[in-house]
């Protein structure tokens, strides 16, 4: 019994050390990586300042395509932000024990992609200083207003959802990380102390934390669904071919969950490799996540079919022009590559057990994530180029769109910003919820113990039955049975 307890404590100690190790040293490769990200961000900032000074005319956007790469990226980032809700909240509420090592990275991805996703529409404005007018003079009837409200609500919610399970870990960092870590020691100590909000691990604190976690888990799911539904309303509530669809809400939510879960897998794969977490994030996690992505891809494929098949059957005038352009026109290569390459191909790969192995799954998820991004572009841009009133008597470049270097640079900076925040976070805080993983180990341990006790009881029963039949048999010590 004592040995068991010692083993358990040793195992927990190993978990703690493994989780805290990456926060103690900044390797050379990390510094180079951060440096590269900063260069991309600085260039993006320069381009954005150029855009601010010279106006949106420096981008490829014109009168007809006023939502280009920026808004496509906004929708994509908001979609990725569903990862935390799916992996953390849904798996938590359904009591999936295997979720424990991957929840933190999923919640972080939600927080960061929302942060930068929320910035993208502001970047798309020619006069961002007027953003407050949207609230001051905002109309409650406008889907744009709903978008602001729901994104802000989701951002606060996901920040709290990320922070709550971090509290005990922050106390752990506060109590032990600063002892041996000399880099930024004072700052880290201050930060961990503040973020631990006086955590002592008392019974009442655990009770409050678990209550809060349960409530947040329940509330964050409808909030996340509402966010992407409202994002879809921005499109669906305007009179434009391709967007005038009743299926847009669930289509966007399904697309978000599909790309978000693929994003989580990529995060898992990266942290597993970089921080040597193979012991905790096992091939089983990848297999289960792969199955989840497969299910979501099938749902997404079904909605995708509905989204295009019904209007294609009718081929109404304006929709017909758009669909012809997508099916056999200038966007046909991209469109069919997306349908076959990022929907059908992942379904085939993920249906095979070997396709759910870590490396193969990671490659598939890269395809899915990139495909999801291009898909947002295909939703936004071709529709804008096919208005109900034909494009006439305008300069030639107004009737086509491809992002230019300013848009690519600013978008790359936003993506680099996401990577930078994730990198800095992973170097400051444990990337696994230590206490949750510990809980998992304890639960496993308890299960094992219950099995042992059952075996012991069965052995005792067998022994007593044997004694009843043959009293001459020597009794066997229970310790020997347990081993």
């Amino acid at each position: 019994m004592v040995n068991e307890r010692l083993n358990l404590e040793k195992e927990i100690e190993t978990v703690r050390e493994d989780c805290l190790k990456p926060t103690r040293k900044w390797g050379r490769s990390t510094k180079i990586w951060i440096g590269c990200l900063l260069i991309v961000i600085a260039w993006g900032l320069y381009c954005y300042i150029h855009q601010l000074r010279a106006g949106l005319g420096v981008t490829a956007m014109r009168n007809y395509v006023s939502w280009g790469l920026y808004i496509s990226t906004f929708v994509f980032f908001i979609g990725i932000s569903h990862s935390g809700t799916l992996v953390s909240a849904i798996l938590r509420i359904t009591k999936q024990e295997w979720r424990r090592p991957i929840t933190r990275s999923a919640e972080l991805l939600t927080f960061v992609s929302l942060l930068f996703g929320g910035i993208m529409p502001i970047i798309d404005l020619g006069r961002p200083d007027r953003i407050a007018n949207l609230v001051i003079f905002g109309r409650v009837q406008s889907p744009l207003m709903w978008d602001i409200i729901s994104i802000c609500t989701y951002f606060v919610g996901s920040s709290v959802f990320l922070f709550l399970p971090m509290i005990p870990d922050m106390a752990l960092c506060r109590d032990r990380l600063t002892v041996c870590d000399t880099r930024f020691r004072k700052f880290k100590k201050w930060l961990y102390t503040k973020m631990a909000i006086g955590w002592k691990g008392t019974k009442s604190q655990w009770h409050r934390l678990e209550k809060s976690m349960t409530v947040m888990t329940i509330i964050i799911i409808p909030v996340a669904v509402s966010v992407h539904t409202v994002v879809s309303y921005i499109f669906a509530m305007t009179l434009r071919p391709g967007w005038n669809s009743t299926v847009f809400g669930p289509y966007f939510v399904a697309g978000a969950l599909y790309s978000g879960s693929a994003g989580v897998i990529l995060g898992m794969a990266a942290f597993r490799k970089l921080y040597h977490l193979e012991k905790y994030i096992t091939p089983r996690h990848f297999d289960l996540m792969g199955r989840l992505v497969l299910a979501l891809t099938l749902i997404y494929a079904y909605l995708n079919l509905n989204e295009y098949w019904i209007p294609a059957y009718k081929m109404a005038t304006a929709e017909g022009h758009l669909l012809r352009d997508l099916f056999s026109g200038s966007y046909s290569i991209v469109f069919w590559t997306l349908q076959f390459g990022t929907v059908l191909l992942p379904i085939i790969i993920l249906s095979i057990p070997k396709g759910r192995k870590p490396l193969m799954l990671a490659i598939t998820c890269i395809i899915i994530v990139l495909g999801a991004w291009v898909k947002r572009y295909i939703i936004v841009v071709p529709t804008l180029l096919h208005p109900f009133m034909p494009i006439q008597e305008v300069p030639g470049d107004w009737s086509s769109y491809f992002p230019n270097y300013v848009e690519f640079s600013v978008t790359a900076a936003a993506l680099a910003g996401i990577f930078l925040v994730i990198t800095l976070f992973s170097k400051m805080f444990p990337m696994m919820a230590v206490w949750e993983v510990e809980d998992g180990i304890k639960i496993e341990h308890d299960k094992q113990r219950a099995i042992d006790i059952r075996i012991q009881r069965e052995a005792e029963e067998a022994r007593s039955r044997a004694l009843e039949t043959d009293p001459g048999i020597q009794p066997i010590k229970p310790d020997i049975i347990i081993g």
Partner: protein
Amino acid sequence: MKIISIYEYPLIQDRPVKKKGLGSKPLATLSSFLKIKLLIVLAFAVMFFSRTPAMAQEKKESSIEMAYFKKADLTKWAVAIVTAKNTDGKFIPAKNARVSFYIQDSNELQLLKNVYTDNKGKALVQLRKEMPLDTGRAFVVVAKIENDSLYEDANEKIRFKEANITIKLNPHDTSRTATAVVTETGKDGTEKPLKDIKVNFYVQRLFGSMPAAEDYSVNTDENGEAVFTYAKGIPGDTAGLLTVAARLDDNEQYGNVENKASTSWGTHLMVEKDPFPRALWEPYAPLPLILTISTLFGGVWLTYFFIFNQMRKIKNDKQVKTGIEQKQ
């Protein structure tokens, strides 16, 4: 070449170096950092001061246009519109130009007022009720730009005679005929009718005057009378009152002269009790929508506040951890 200025380096270098705490190396780094900052400040200062006098010397070529207005309340106004040549050679409104208005009295100019132009280059001055008249019974107003720091000198003069418009109306006249009588005050103070003067007829609307018909100009006869028939069904106010106006517009001799009169020729304006009912396409949202959004998001935010309160309680937890009170 060494730059001599009040920010010269020795001022920094001569400072006593504190030996406590930081060594001399960090202080030297700090000193060199300050030097760089000073150089930048100096460069900006040189750029600023070298530009300012040059800018002050470049006065813009300016031009003045003038007009005279006599309003329905019998006040008289002189307006000067100042334009200045920009770098493209185009004349654009000159703002903040100081315009001096003079009136001419027996070949002498009397300063009336100095007025600065607004953003549209407009300077406005109210004239005296009794203006000094010359032998031709006309008054002269002069506008000048003199010694302005931004604009070159310019001047303009207007000379107008004084005319009056009287509107005769009969509210019970079903033919809705308005008669405008245009007169000029004679030496003896009697009103002398003016013949062949073009009078324009208008209807007063909320933000200005609207021509009363497609052909709204009538010339005066030998009695100085211009007769105009207003159309039926012109909207008036809630009492059916209509304000009609008769005007001389840009008359060469008399300038802009106006008079107005109210009459009950208008149709009664029906004011909607609720011009903007709550609807998706109106300024105010339907109440069910507001209630739905408020309830949904209010509920979520109340939950957040519950969580914040739990966090506050976690922070203020005074319980001391014991071996037993650990998470089970």
